[in-house]
Protein backbone atom coordinates (compact mmCIF):
# COMPACT_ATOMS: atom_id res chain seq x y z
CA UNK A 1 0.00 0.00 0.00
CA UNK A 2 1.17 3.49 -0.74
CA UNK A 3 1.75 5.95 2.08
CA UNK A 4 -1.22 8.08 1.10
CA UNK A 5 -3.63 5.15 1.27
CA UNK A 6 -2.16 3.94 4.57
CA UNK A 7 -2.33 7.39 6.17
CA UNK A 8 -5.84 7.97 4.84
CA UNK A 9 -6.99 4.64 6.24
CA UNK A 10 -5.44 5.44 9.63
CA UNK A 11 -7.17 8.80 9.89
CA UNK A 12 -10.46 7.39 8.63
CA UNK A 13 -10.36 4.77 11.41
CA UNK A 14 -9.29 7.41 13.94
CA UNK A 15 -12.19 9.62 12.86
CA UNK A 16 -14.62 6.71 13.28
CA UNK A 17 -13.28 5.86 16.73
CA UNK A 18 -13.33 9.47 17.94
CA UNK A 19 -16.78 10.23 16.52
CA UNK A 20 -18.14 7.06 18.14
CA UNK A 21 -16.49 7.88 21.48
CA UNK A 22 -17.73 11.47 21.28
CA UNK A 23 -21.25 10.20 20.64
CA UNK A 24 -21.04 7.95 23.69
CA UNK A 25 -19.81 10.82 25.84
CA UNK A 26 -22.00 13.65 24.59
CA UNK A 27 -25.34 12.42 23.21
CA UNK A 28 -28.51 12.68 25.26
CA UNK A 29 -30.24 9.77 23.52
CA UNK A 30 -29.51 6.30 24.91
CA UNK A 31 -30.01 4.49 21.56
CA UNK A 32 -27.62 6.89 19.80
CA UNK A 33 -25.16 6.17 22.60
CA UNK A 34 -25.33 2.44 21.85
CA UNK A 35 -24.85 3.14 18.13
CA UNK A 36 -21.85 5.36 18.88
CA UNK A 37 -20.36 2.56 20.97
CA UNK A 38 -20.83 0.22 18.01
CA UNK A 39 -19.09 2.64 15.64
CA UNK A 40 -16.18 3.00 18.05
CA UNK A 41 -15.82 -0.77 18.53
CA UNK A 42 -15.92 -1.41 14.77
CA UNK A 43 -13.26 1.27 14.27
CA UNK A 44 -11.12 -0.44 16.91
CA UNK A 45 -11.51 -3.72 15.04
CA UNK A 46 -10.48 -1.86 11.88
CA UNK A 47 -7.37 -0.59 13.69
CA UNK A 48 -6.46 -4.15 14.69
CA UNK A 49 -6.80 -5.27 11.08
CA UNK A 50 -4.79 -2.21 10.01
CA UNK A 51 -1.90 -3.35 12.20
CA UNK A 52 -2.07 -6.84 10.76
CA UNK A 53 -3.93 -8.60 13.57
CA UNK A 54 -6.69 -10.27 11.58
CA UNK A 55 -7.72 -12.73 14.26
CA UNK A 56 -7.88 -10.02 16.90
CA UNK A 57 -10.08 -7.87 14.65
CA UNK A 58 -12.42 -10.82 14.14
CA UNK A 59 -12.52 -11.56 17.89
CA UNK A 60 -13.26 -7.89 18.60
CA UNK A 61 -16.18 -7.90 16.17
CA UNK A 62 -17.56 -11.20 17.51
CA UNK A 63 -17.18 -10.46 21.21
CA UNK A 64 -17.82 -6.72 21.34
CA UNK A 65 -20.13 -5.92 18.45
CA UNK A 66 -21.84 -9.29 18.48
CA UNK A 67 -21.91 -9.82 22.24
CA UNK A 68 -21.36 -6.79 24.43
CA UNK A 69 -23.23 -4.32 22.21
CA UNK A 70 -26.24 -6.65 21.99
CA UNK A 71 -26.11 -6.97 25.78
CA UNK A 72 -26.19 -3.18 26.02
CA UNK A 73 -29.19 -3.01 23.69
CA UNK A 74 -31.01 -5.72 25.68
CA UNK A 75 -30.27 -3.91 28.95
CA UNK A 76 -31.57 -0.63 27.51
CA UNK A 77 -34.74 -2.31 26.26
CA UNK A 78 -35.32 -4.22 29.52
CA UNK A 79 -34.66 -1.25 31.75
CA UNK A 80 -36.38 1.51 29.83
CA UNK A 81 -39.46 -0.35 28.62
CA UNK A 82 -41.68 1.38 31.16
CA UNK A 83 -40.83 4.94 30.22
CA UNK A 84 -42.53 6.23 27.10
CA UNK A 85 -40.29 7.01 24.15
CA UNK A 86 -36.54 7.15 24.27
CA UNK A 87 -35.02 7.92 27.64
CA UNK A 88 -32.99 11.07 28.04
CA UNK A 89 -29.56 11.09 29.57
CA UNK A 90 -28.66 13.97 31.81
CA UNK A 91 -25.31 15.29 32.74
CA UNK A 92 -23.78 17.08 35.70
CA UNK A 93 -20.61 18.92 36.69
CA UNK A 94 -19.76 19.65 33.08
CA UNK A 95 -16.87 22.10 33.55
CA UNK A 96 -15.03 20.11 36.20
CA UNK A 97 -15.45 16.90 34.18
CA UNK A 98 -14.06 18.56 31.03
CA UNK A 99 -11.11 19.86 33.03
CA UNK A 100 -10.38 16.49 34.64
CA UNK A 101 -10.72 14.47 31.41
CA UNK A 102 -8.78 16.92 29.22
CA UNK A 103 -6.08 17.38 31.83
CA UNK A 104 -5.58 13.68 32.45
CA UNK A 105 -5.52 12.74 28.77
CA UNK A 106 -3.10 15.61 27.97
CA UNK A 107 -0.86 14.41 30.81
CA UNK A 108 -1.01 10.85 29.46
CA UNK A 109 -0.17 12.02 25.93
CA UNK A 110 2.77 14.01 27.31
CA UNK A 111 4.04 11.03 29.28
CA UNK A 112 3.66 8.68 26.32
CA UNK A 113 5.67 10.92 23.98
CA UNK A 114 8.70 8.55 24.00
CA UNK A 115 6.43 5.70 22.94
CA UNK A 116 5.17 7.79 20.02
CA UNK A 117 8.61 7.88 18.44
CA UNK A 118 8.67 4.06 18.42
CA UNK A 119 5.45 3.80 16.45
CA UNK A 120 5.83 2.86 12.85
CA UNK A 121 4.06 0.82 10.25
CA UNK A 122 2.59 -2.61 10.73
CA UNK A 123 4.98 -5.41 11.57
CA UNK A 124 4.69 -9.12 10.93
CA UNK A 125 2.06 -10.27 13.37
CA UNK A 126 2.04 -14.02 13.03
CA UNK A 127 -1.21 -15.75 12.18
CA UNK A 128 -3.74 -17.58 14.35
CA UNK A 129 -1.48 -20.63 14.48
CA UNK A 130 1.29 -18.67 16.18
CA UNK A 131 -1.26 -17.08 18.49
CA UNK A 132 -2.65 -20.46 19.52
CA UNK A 133 0.88 -21.72 20.22
CA UNK A 134 1.37 -18.66 22.43
CA UNK A 135 -1.96 -19.05 24.25
CA UNK A 136 -1.54 -22.78 24.90
CA UNK A 137 2.17 -22.44 25.66
CA UNK A 138 3.68 -19.55 27.66
CA UNK A 139 0.32 -17.87 28.31
CA UNK A 140 -1.54 -21.06 29.29
CA UNK A 141 -2.19 -20.02 32.90
CA UNK A 142 -3.50 -16.60 31.82
CA UNK A 143 -5.66 -18.23 29.18
CA UNK A 144 -7.17 -20.69 31.65
CA UNK A 145 -7.66 -17.94 34.23
CA UNK A 146 -9.53 -15.88 31.64
CA UNK A 147 -11.72 -18.88 30.91
CA UNK A 148 -12.42 -19.37 34.62
CA UNK A 149 -13.23 -15.67 34.93
CA UNK A 150 -15.75 -15.95 32.10
CA UNK A 151 -17.35 -18.97 33.78
CA UNK A 152 -17.58 -17.14 37.12
CA UNK A 153 -19.06 -14.09 35.35
CA UNK A 154 -21.63 -16.32 33.63
CA UNK A 155 -22.71 -17.87 36.94
CA UNK A 156 -22.79 -14.43 38.57
CA UNK A 157 -24.96 -13.03 35.78
CA UNK A 158 -27.44 -15.91 36.14
CA UNK A 159 -27.54 -15.48 39.93
CA UNK A 160 -27.86 -11.68 39.86
CA UNK A 161 -30.10 -11.22 36.87
CA UNK A 162 -32.13 -14.39 36.65
CA UNK A 163 -33.46 -14.89 40.15
CA UNK A 164 -36.73 -13.77 41.74
CA UNK A 165 -39.35 -16.04 40.30
CA UNK A 166 -42.82 -14.75 41.03
Amino acid sequence: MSAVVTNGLFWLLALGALVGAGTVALTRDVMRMALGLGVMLLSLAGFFAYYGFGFLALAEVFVYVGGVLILFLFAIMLVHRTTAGRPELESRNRVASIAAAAGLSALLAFMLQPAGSLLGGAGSAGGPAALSRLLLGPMLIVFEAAGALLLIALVAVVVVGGGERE
Partner: protein
Amino acid sequence: MSLVLVSCALFGLGLYGTLVRRDIIGILASIEVMLGGPQLLLVGLGASIDHGAGSALNAQGIALVIIVVAAAEAAVGLALVVAVARRTRSTRLDDLTEVKG
Protein backbone atom coordinates in the same frame (compact mmCIF):
# COMPACT_ATOMS: atom_id res chain seq x y z
CA MET B 1 2.73 9.89 17.68
CA SER B 2 -0.71 10.20 16.11
CA LEU B 3 -1.75 6.84 17.58
CA VAL B 4 -0.77 8.04 21.06
CA LEU B 5 -2.94 11.12 20.57
CA VAL B 6 -5.89 9.06 19.28
CA SER B 7 -5.74 6.60 22.17
CA CYS B 8 -5.35 9.38 24.74
CA ALA B 9 -8.33 11.20 23.19
CA LEU B 10 -10.39 8.00 23.40
CA PHE B 11 -9.43 7.63 27.06
CA GLY B 12 -10.27 11.27 27.74
CA LEU B 13 -13.67 11.07 26.03
CA GLY B 14 -14.47 7.91 28.00
CA LEU B 15 -13.40 9.55 31.25
CA TYR B 16 -15.53 12.61 30.48
CA GLY B 17 -18.54 10.39 29.79
CA THR B 18 -17.95 8.43 33.00
CA LEU B 19 -17.83 11.62 35.07
CA VAL B 20 -20.70 13.44 33.40
CA ARG B 21 -23.31 10.70 33.03
CA ARG B 22 -26.12 10.11 35.49
CA ASP B 23 -27.38 6.90 33.88
CA ILE B 24 -25.62 3.66 34.88
CA ILE B 25 -25.79 2.27 31.34
CA GLY B 26 -24.12 5.43 30.04
CA ILE B 27 -21.34 5.07 32.61
CA LEU B 28 -20.77 1.42 31.60
CA ALA B 29 -20.58 2.39 27.90
CA SER B 30 -18.11 5.16 28.74
CA ILE B 31 -15.96 2.67 30.66
CA GLU B 32 -15.89 0.48 27.53
CA VAL B 33 -14.63 3.51 25.58
CA MET B 34 -12.00 4.13 28.25
CA LEU B 35 -10.80 0.53 27.94
CA GLY B 36 -10.55 0.88 24.16
CA GLY B 37 -7.89 3.61 24.21
CA PRO B 38 -5.11 1.73 26.04
CA GLN B 39 -5.97 -1.45 24.16
CA LEU B 40 -5.47 0.38 20.86
CA LEU B 41 -2.12 1.78 22.01
CA LEU B 42 -0.98 -1.66 23.21
CA VAL B 43 -1.81 -3.25 19.85
CA GLY B 44 -0.22 -0.43 17.85
CA LEU B 45 2.99 -0.45 19.90
CA GLY B 46 3.20 -4.23 19.82
CA ALA B 47 2.85 -4.25 16.06
CA SER B 48 5.36 -1.43 15.59
CA ILE B 49 8.30 -2.44 17.77
CA ASP B 50 8.42 -6.10 16.80
CA HIS B 51 12.09 -6.82 16.12
CA GLY B 52 11.92 -10.58 16.09
CA ALA B 53 11.29 -10.74 19.84
CA GLY B 54 7.65 -11.73 19.44
CA SER B 55 6.21 -8.54 20.91
CA ALA B 56 3.54 -8.38 18.21
CA LEU B 57 2.39 -11.87 19.17
CA ASN B 58 2.47 -11.06 22.88
CA ALA B 59 0.47 -7.88 22.28
CA GLN B 60 -2.10 -9.96 20.43
CA GLY B 61 -2.39 -12.38 23.35
CA ILE B 62 -2.69 -9.60 25.94
CA ALA B 63 -5.29 -7.75 23.84
CA LEU B 64 -7.31 -10.98 23.61
CA VAL B 65 -7.24 -11.28 27.41
CA ILE B 66 -8.38 -7.63 27.67
CA ILE B 67 -11.32 -8.43 25.37
CA VAL B 68 -12.32 -11.39 27.57
CA VAL B 69 -12.09 -9.39 30.79
CA ALA B 70 -14.03 -6.46 29.32
CA ALA B 71 -16.76 -8.80 28.08
CA ALA B 72 -17.07 -10.36 31.56
CA GLU B 73 -17.16 -6.90 33.14
CA ALA B 74 -19.87 -5.66 30.79
CA ALA B 75 -21.98 -8.80 31.33
CA VAL B 76 -21.84 -8.58 35.14
CA GLY B 77 -22.35 -4.82 35.09
CA LEU B 78 -25.41 -4.99 32.86
CA ALA B 79 -26.89 -7.83 34.92
CA LEU B 80 -26.49 -5.65 38.00
CA VAL B 81 -28.14 -2.76 36.16
CA VAL B 82 -31.12 -4.93 35.23
CA ALA B 83 -31.40 -6.29 38.79
CA VAL B 84 -31.23 -2.79 40.28
CA ALA B 85 -33.74 -1.43 37.77
CA ARG B 86 -36.14 -4.25 38.62
CA ARG B 87 -35.92 -3.21 42.27
CA THR B 88 -35.96 0.57 42.03
CA ARG B 89 -37.58 1.17 38.60
CA SER B 90 -34.75 3.52 37.73
CA THR B 91 -31.17 3.49 36.46
CA ARG B 92 -30.33 7.05 37.47
CA LEU B 93 -27.57 7.37 40.00
CA ASP B 94 -29.51 10.06 41.90
CA ASP B 95 -32.28 7.59 42.67
CA LEU B 96 -29.96 4.87 43.96
CA THR B 97 -29.37 6.19 47.44
CA GLU B 98 -30.63 3.16 49.33
CA VAL B 99 -27.27 2.14 50.81
CA LYS B 100 -26.14 5.66 51.58
CA GLY B 101 -24.50 5.89 55.02
